[in-house]
């Protein structure tokens, strides 16, 4: 039965069927997205750690005091707030720039 498929094909190598391509393609896409998201999350944690350590641990003792822990928690929350504010503002600004360049292109044609 498999000889029917080889009939007329130029090589003996298995031809990639569209269904297999679709799965592999989606697998690669998902893997890439996950990698990038993970790297981004790691960078966020690293930056947050550096900022909050510098801010809250001014005199390192034998262990983290409860005030230091409170400071760290608040710092983490403020950092996440700042991240969200900046992320939002940045995206808004970018789409405004894009709209501006699009409308100026349209204006040129008028």
């Amino acid at each position: 039965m498999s000889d029917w498929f080889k009939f007329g094909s130029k090589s003996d190598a298995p031809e990639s069927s569209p269904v297999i391509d679709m799965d592999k393609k989606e697998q690669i896409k998902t893997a890439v997205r996950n990698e990038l998201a993970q790297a981004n999350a790691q960078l966020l944690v690293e930056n947050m750690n550096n900022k909050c350590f510098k801010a809250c641990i001014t005199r390192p003792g034998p262990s983290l005091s409860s005030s230091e822990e409170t400071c760290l928690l608040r710092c983490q929350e403020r950092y996440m707030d700042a991240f969200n504010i900046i992320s939002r503002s940045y995206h808004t600004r970018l789409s405004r720039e894009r709209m501006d360049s699009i409308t100026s292109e349209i204006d040129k044609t008028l």
Partner: protein
Amino acid sequence: MDDFDPSTRREMETFLAREQANAKLQHTIQTLTTTCICVTSTPSNKFSSAEASCLTATLERFMDTSMFLIKSLSEKQRSH
């Protein structure tokens, strides 16, 4: 990737280019956050509206700055 047909390969190239651009964007946001934030030794319970608008203003001015500098650079290049 080599056993993909040309149209799928083009699609993957576009996808990768877009993801890479997005990653650069995300990275910029990270840098901006860590640069613009002012965490004192006693962080507040919540950002005051003044602090929040200061963050936004810092970001907007940063964008203005980089666009201004890029434009002046390209103008200088053109005049040469």
